[in-house]
């Protein structure tokens, strides 16, 4: 086999075969049936690395550029297996729903939501996908408080705990981490949930929709990487009041 034919063969191989240990025990067929949706907004710096870390295991990655004003779209066209673009910025919730609808239309058996700033780990995603595929639950949610919490900044910890308490009171949902962007949904669960909250209030809306859907939910311990980049991109604590206001208006005004 000469060098050229060897290269062509390598390029035609499924990613899971190219990187045999990338699946971390997850069956390649299960990984191939799972579509990873990444909402992206002004992430030109980090998105190539994030997508590159997932594609050795998951070949179906849908990156939705939510009207970025930097070079994100150019980068996505170059590195994302599936790239979609909102011509106007409509928020993370809208981008997630776009990616989910697209993946469902392509025949996805499972949908995973993954953040674009590199704070989620592939091994956590694989564990959750295996859980949904193994019928442990219909919806797998990441729970950062069951993992290593030493990296979570104190102010964020207080805010996240407050959000958990708020949802227990308002929605009656007993979860331990309601604002974790790492989720895996079975096809049926993803079909039954439609996010209408455009902006960041979608995380709270998803929790309500999950509670109403009657789907079996399980939380999985995950570790969030609070890098300098992710911290700078993340929500400010003052933004939580805006999220709360949007959520309440959406909940009560319809």
């Amino acid at each position, binding site marked *: 086999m000469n060098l050229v034919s060897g290269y062509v063969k390598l390029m035609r191989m499924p990613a899971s075969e190219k990187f045999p240990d990338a699946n971390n025990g997850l069956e390649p067929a299960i990984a191939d049936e799972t579509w990873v949706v990444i909402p992206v907004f002004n992430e030109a710096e980090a998105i190539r690395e994030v997508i590159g870390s997932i594609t050795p295991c998951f070949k179906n990655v849908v990156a939705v550029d939510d009207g970025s004003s930097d070079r994100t779209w150019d980068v*996505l066209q170059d590195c994302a297996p*599936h790239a979609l673009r909102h011509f106007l910025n*409509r928020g993370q919730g809208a981008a997630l729903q776009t990616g989910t609808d697209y993946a469902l239309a392509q025949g996805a058996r499972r949908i995973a939501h993954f953040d674009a700033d590199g704070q989620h780990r592939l091994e956590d995603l694989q564990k959750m996908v295996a859980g949904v595929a193994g019928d442990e639950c219909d919806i797998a949610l990441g729970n950062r408080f069951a993992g290593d919490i030493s990296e979570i900044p104190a102010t964020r910890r207080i805010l996240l705990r407050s959000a958990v308490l708020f949802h227990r009171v308002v929605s009656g949902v007993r979860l331990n981490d309601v604002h974790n962007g790492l989720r895996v949904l079975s096809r049926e669960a993803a079909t039954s949930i439609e996010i209408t909250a455009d902006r960041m209030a979608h995380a709270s809306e998803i929790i309500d929709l999950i509670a109403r859907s009657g789907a079996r939910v399980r939380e999985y311990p995950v570790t969030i990487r609070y890098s300098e980049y992710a911290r700078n991109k993340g929500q400010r604590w003052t933004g939580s009041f805006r999220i709360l206001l949007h959520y309440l208006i959406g909940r009560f005004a319809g």
Partner: protein
Amino acid sequence: MTTFQIILISILGCLGLFGAISGFRRSIGRPAAVIILIISLAGISAALDPNQTTRIARAIGISRGTDLIVYLVALVVFQGFVVFYLRLRKVRRELTLLVRHLAILEASSGDGRGRIRRNATEAEASDP
């Protein structure tokens, strides 16, 4: 009649006329046209006879006619704000649906797999 009354009555008269014409032409909804007409007629009536508002105010337990007008204006402004906000929310939601629909349409109209990366090989692009 004072100059202020003349100006106020003229403005309210124009507002009432606008409501009546718009309602007649159906460029605004009938309920909105009726509300505009009622507000303008009530305003003209209060401007012509200021003591009238005091009498109405006292009849419903408010001491001054001015207070009654302030309360009514506050209510109308608040209701207008709520209506405007809900309409804005609806428009924003419709805009989101449009943006999302276009994104999927654009991605699906090409090769059915979204925007394939530019440097993808033909074999990868045709792989179902």
